[in-house]
């Protein structure tokens, strides 16, 4: 009887049912879209920020004291220490390997360029490197084991990927051996342009190189000259050696655990906390893992970048959550208002049913069931609408493709959206239905 009534009532008022479902769907679209964005936006922002320079600097453990002034850089020969170029691919074998966005090695010395002193920096411009197979399973002291998805086998990186804010006139040198990138200020001083050939002299030996591009950064790089690492290693007679590596990593802002780990040292954390710390991409834990993977390395956080990022992302997250809360609130109110109108239009029906002997309990059940069903329908439609909207929003807002929706996140968002939809539909119909039932059937039927 009840089921029959329910189906009939929903069917007869097709237009109204559709309207209510639509409005519930709109609201749940907003809820699901915003939940998706709120959970992923900081991650997206973090990725975006990563195109603006490295946040980790790797140096040899016995880091030499360097005298860097006016774009020049000197290191006393007896102090010099190096890292091995061959060890670099191991960066992509650590636990957070997929968070290593880009890296580039550097090796520099003072040289004479067209008779002027300048710093010659050897680096990777744009390289595809093979990645060794890394550890697949990470076991922890408390017996738990974590699996990491294996890497693709090769990795595309280099200065071009690391320093996307550089303005390069001409083009980046390709992987040919004698192309160079020259700093704007140095180029101006030497009066050289693109495709000019320049003479570089080191310790009596001299080579001719051709200028591929002129770089503008606003910093000391403008007084320097960039060549292929291989060439620099040959010139300086340091085969396979590098002095420092800049690494750009996706990290989450530090919290209390990260602060404690850096204060007392990760080794002194209790095993459970150590695992959590190790398996969260804090700047500290990524540096720790890099130092584990490449012996004789010291990882340093580039504080200007990492601090600004952390603080900014923290603020962004809070702002988004508040804005989203407000938006969701409005959406829910809109639905409630629609439900009120819908029920209100049916007061005559309610009066009639009451006059025919239905008691308040039966009527209440009927209306609440109806609301529940429409809420459910709207919720499901809205959830998928929200996914699409979130995708659209993030594509418009962030230059990166879509969001990577993780299943575990969706497992939380789907029930929340559905619950919100049903709850709002129920709440929205509860009060007007109750009021309609309070009225004398005679009055409602007469239409007063």
């Amino acid at each position, binding site marked *: 009887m009840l089921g029959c009534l329910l189906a009939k009532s929903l069917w007869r008022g097709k237009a109204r049912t559709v309207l209510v479902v639509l*409005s519930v769907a*709109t609201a749940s679209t*907003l809820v699901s879209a915003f939940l998706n964005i709120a959970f992923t*936006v900081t991650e997206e*922002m973090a990725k*975006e*920020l990563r195109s*603006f*320079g490295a946040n980790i600097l790797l140096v040899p453990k016995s*880091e*030499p*004291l360097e*005298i*860097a*002034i*006016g774009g020049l850089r*000197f290191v*006393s020969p007896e*102090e010099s220490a190096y890292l091995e170029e061959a060890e670099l691919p191991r960066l992509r074998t650590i636990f957070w390997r997929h968070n290593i966005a880009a890296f580039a090695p550097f090796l520099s010395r003072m040289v004479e360029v067209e008779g002027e002193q300048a710093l010659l920096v050897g680096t990777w411009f744009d390289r595809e490197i093979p990645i060794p197979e890394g550890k697949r399973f990470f076991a922890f002291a408390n017996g738990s084991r974590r699996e990491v998805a294996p890497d693709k086998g090769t990795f595309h990186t280099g200065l071009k990927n690391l320093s996307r*804010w*550089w*303005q390069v006139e001409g083009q980046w040198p390709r992987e040919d051996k004698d192309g160079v990138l020259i700093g704007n200020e140095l180029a101006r001083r030497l009066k050289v342009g693109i495709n000019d050939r320049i003479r570089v002299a080191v310790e009596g030996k001299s080579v001719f190189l051709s200028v591929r591009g002129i770089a*503008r*950064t*606003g*910093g000391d790089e*403008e007084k320097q000259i960039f060549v292929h690492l291989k060439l620099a290693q040959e010139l300086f007679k340091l085969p396979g050696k590098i002095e420092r590596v800049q690494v750009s990593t996706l990290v989450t802002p530090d919290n209390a655990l990260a602060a404690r780990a850096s204060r007392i040292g990760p080794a002194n954390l209790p095993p459970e906390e150590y695992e959590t710390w190790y398996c969260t991409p804090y700047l500290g834990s990524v540096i720790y893992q890099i130092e584990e993977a490449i012996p004789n390395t010291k990882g*340093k956080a*580039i*504080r*200007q970048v*990492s*601090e*600004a990022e952390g*603080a*900014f992302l923290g*603020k*962004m997250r809070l*702002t988004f959550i*508040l*804005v*989203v809360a*407000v*938006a969701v*609130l*409005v*959406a829910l*109110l*809109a639905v*409630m*208002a*629609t439900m*009120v*109108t819908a029920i*209100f239009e049916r007061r005559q029906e309610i009066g009639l049913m009451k006059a025919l002997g239905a008691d308040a309990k039966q009527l209440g059940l009927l209306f609440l069931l109806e609301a529940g069903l429409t809420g459910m329908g709207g919720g499901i439609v809205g959830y998928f609408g929200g996914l699409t909207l979130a995708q659209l929003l993030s594509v*418009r*807002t962030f230059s990166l493709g879509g969001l990577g929706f993780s299943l575990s996140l969706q497992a939380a968002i789907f029930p929340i959206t559905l619950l919100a939809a049903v709850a709002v539909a129920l709440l929205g119909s509860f009060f007007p239905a109750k009021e309609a039932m309070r009225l004398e059937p005679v009055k409602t*039927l*007469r*239409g007063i």
Partner: protein
Amino acid sequence: MSEMTRRIVFGSLRRRRGRVVVAICAIALGASLVVAALNLRYGIKERLARELRSYGANLVLVPRTEPFLKESDLVILEDKRLKDRIIGYAPFIHKVAKVGGKDVVLVGARFSQLSKISQWWQIEGRWPEKENEALIGTNAASKLGLRLGDRFSAVHKISQLSLSVTGLLHTGGAEEHQVLVRLETLQRLTLLDGFLTSVLVSSPAGKELEETVAILQKAWPQAEARTLLQVARAEEAILARLEIFLTLVSLLILTAAGLSVYATMSTAALERKVEMALMRALGGEERRVAWIFASEALGMGLIGGILGCAAGLLLSEIIGLSVFGSFIFPSLLSLPIGLALGVGISLFCSLWVVRRILALQPAVVLRGE
């Protein structure tokens, strides 16, 4: 408005007090959310732009042709035209000197100004205050074998200086290899009184930055103003993304708020079907009946809109306060938009419903079909 219309309007508002309050609340709520969203859309951007500025300079001034800048020229940065555009600046002099027989870069700086634009520096110990105190980079400290509180001497050509370490500096950058002392101290040591090698400037990001560079070039021709692209580009990108995102969210809120006001107002108008039909049956002209309802809606829209604007301002300030710990500057645009939303939608909805009802035969409505 005729005497009768006024009586009808006020009478109806008084009699249906509950409904009117509900409608006004709905309008106020919608308007307040819109005002809050718009305020955040503009205010937050400004706050975040300021916030980003505490993380390092985005401009650097270096000598153009001469080897040094003159310290006396710093007054240019205090000039009225530039003052608003410059959040902070710090002059520097860099020189290589010998400490314990090793070459090291000595940096002279005004610490009070430097600390303002280098908030990310982590200092073990404290900033130097007195004449012969120095801040020393961690790597320099370990290579020179110096610890907190140690005394050492720096030699430059024939002059010599005795210094004590008050703080160790962690930055992850070039500063870790340097020794920082007071500007005058280093100038005296190197016999370069009144000379500078560079000035770091922190200035609001975005379009303004380019203008600032242009003004600086003109005001201080001996100096070359360079944008530190890493900082500037990152800032621009963040702010642009934020703007798009907040605009989209504001639009969504605007739509949702409009819908909720629409729903409430149409319910309120629908309820009064019979009343309208009765007026028509008693000989009220269509136009006049519509006017009565429109003026009611206008009144409610105004009251709701004003209340909503106030509430919205409050809401955005609360959000601003909880995120940034300070008030955000309200956007002047938000108030008229909030008010227009309240009045416009309530007027539009009631006229829409009223027209539909007036099109019906009064007899049909009165019979309750």
